């Protein structure tokens, strides 16, 4: 137990020191270069805004977080399903995979307005943008996991005449779990990006803004301190979702591989 606390300290102290140093530098830079607050506010100013606007900001974080989680969950379900379909037929894979790559390469800012036009502003528009941007890593990574089972294990299943379903559930899916989780980690951060960017275009209502909407508003009003506060919160949101997924990874994979985070890497 003692070891664990020491480990936690060793892991958490250096980044905290870095953070502190960065805040001090930031503060000094603003004072020394005499930056106007509409360009760069002092950290103190941002802190004050965070407290003053705590209610609306918390509400906004919740709204954006909800859309991001929703988009992430849909990506997870849809991405895994698509990957399963891909893994069952090389023909289907070859015919559709290039179009899955489209999801990866299309600039989301180019199609977000289109999606909002179709779905109307509000929650679902944002969720769809978040899904589109976070889908590909899961599809790519899970498909790779499902189709790269070591040939010895495939032989084992052939030897015992396992059918397709047994092979999928007892071999391919368990083998793909580490890859799936890696995809999910990449995708979780993107889902937050998607929900913020989605809100740039879709927003909710002006009296119910998410973080993305606060960012666009405060920037057009030159309320840079509020902009910073929203930025920090969206970063924290990403870190939180990423952290949760990583934690789940460790818990599941430790049992199989004795803590090796990614045996396929």
């Amino acid at each position: 137990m003692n070891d664990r606390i020491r480990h936690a300290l060793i892991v958490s102290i250096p980044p905290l020191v870095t953070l502190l140093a960065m805040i001090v530098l930031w503060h000094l830079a603003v004072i020394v270069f005499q930056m106007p607050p509409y360009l760069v506010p002092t950290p103190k100013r941002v802190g004050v805004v965070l407290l003053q606007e705590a209610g609306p900001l918390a509400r906004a974080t919740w709204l954006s977080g909800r859309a991001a989680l929703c988009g992430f969950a849909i990506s997870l379900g849809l991405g895994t399903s698509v990957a399963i379909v891909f893994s069952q037929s090389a023909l289907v894979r070859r015919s559709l995979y290039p179009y899955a790559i489209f999801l990866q390469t299309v600039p989301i800012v180019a199609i977000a307005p289109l999606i909002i036009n179709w779905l109307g502003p509000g929650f679902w528009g944002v969720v769809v943008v978040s899904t589109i941007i976070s889908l590909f890593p899961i599809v790519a990574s899970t498909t790779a996991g499902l189709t790269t089972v070591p040939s010895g294990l495939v032989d084992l299943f052939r030897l015992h005449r396992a059918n397709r379903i047994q092979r999928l559930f007892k071999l391919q899916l368990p083998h793909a779990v580490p890859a799936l989780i890696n995809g999910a980690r990449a995708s979780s951060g993107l889902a937050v990006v998607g929900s913020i960017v989605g809100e740039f275009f879709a927003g909710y209502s002006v009296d119910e803004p998410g973080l993305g909407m606060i960012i666009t508003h405060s920037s057009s009003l030159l309320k840079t301190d509020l902009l910073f506060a929203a930025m920090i919160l969206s970063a924290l949101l990403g870190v939180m979702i990423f952290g949760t997924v990583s934690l789940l990874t460790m818990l599941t994979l430790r049992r199989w591989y004795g803590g090796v985070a990614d045996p396929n890497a």
Partner: protein
Amino acid sequence: MTPPIVIETCAASMSYAGQTVLSGVDLRCAAGEFVSLLGPSGCGKSTLLRMAAGLEQPTSGSVRIGAGGRSLDSEGTDATSFVFQDPNLLPWRDVWHNVALPLEIEGMDRKEQRRRIADSLRLVGLHEADARKYPHALSGGMRMRASLARALVTRPSILLLDEPFAALDDMLRTQLNEELLALWQRENWTVLFVTHNIAEAVFLSNRIVVLGGKPSRCVAEIEVPLPHPRDRTLRGSAEFARLTAEVSASLFEASA
């Protein structure tokens, strides 16, 4: 009455991408026999064994396994098990559930499964506590035992073993050789055993088949008339030395 032939290849040939690996291999194993396959590396021993298991189809010739004369592709000849050179355990299952896999695939009921798994683990000398371990937490010897337990859980009458002990140290190998031989005697299996190790082949087998040439054929067959039961003192005997030398010589010829 002579025992029936349970593994038979007739003029079996195998080519990969135009390159012939095996050409016209005739191999016969009678029920209850322990036959070892020896040959230089890359001569096609694993290929021959995989053909016998039905994992590969011969390019020409025929392969037959089981007393009923059915090939392994047809249903109902599950009396054959294969042990790979690599233990091939599923890392996400503990030993118990790895051993359970063939029975799960077969769809056997749980209660019967539990009995079979416990029997099989006991047979290979794995304990209760080991059964709950995951493969990453096992020693090489224990992994091999688990792999063997998985092969035995279907109660096969024919065992195909591809260098199962190649990755183990000499001590452990000697010990597992003795255990395997004792089990063979008790269970009356037909065993086709691939190895690189001459002493291992002599110690275990009734008969040694040497593969060689380019492409490979059976170049020699050596009977091993050593009496059973065999134990490690046999390894020091003059007869054992003579047989080892004979096998060694024909292996040299095969590699030349």
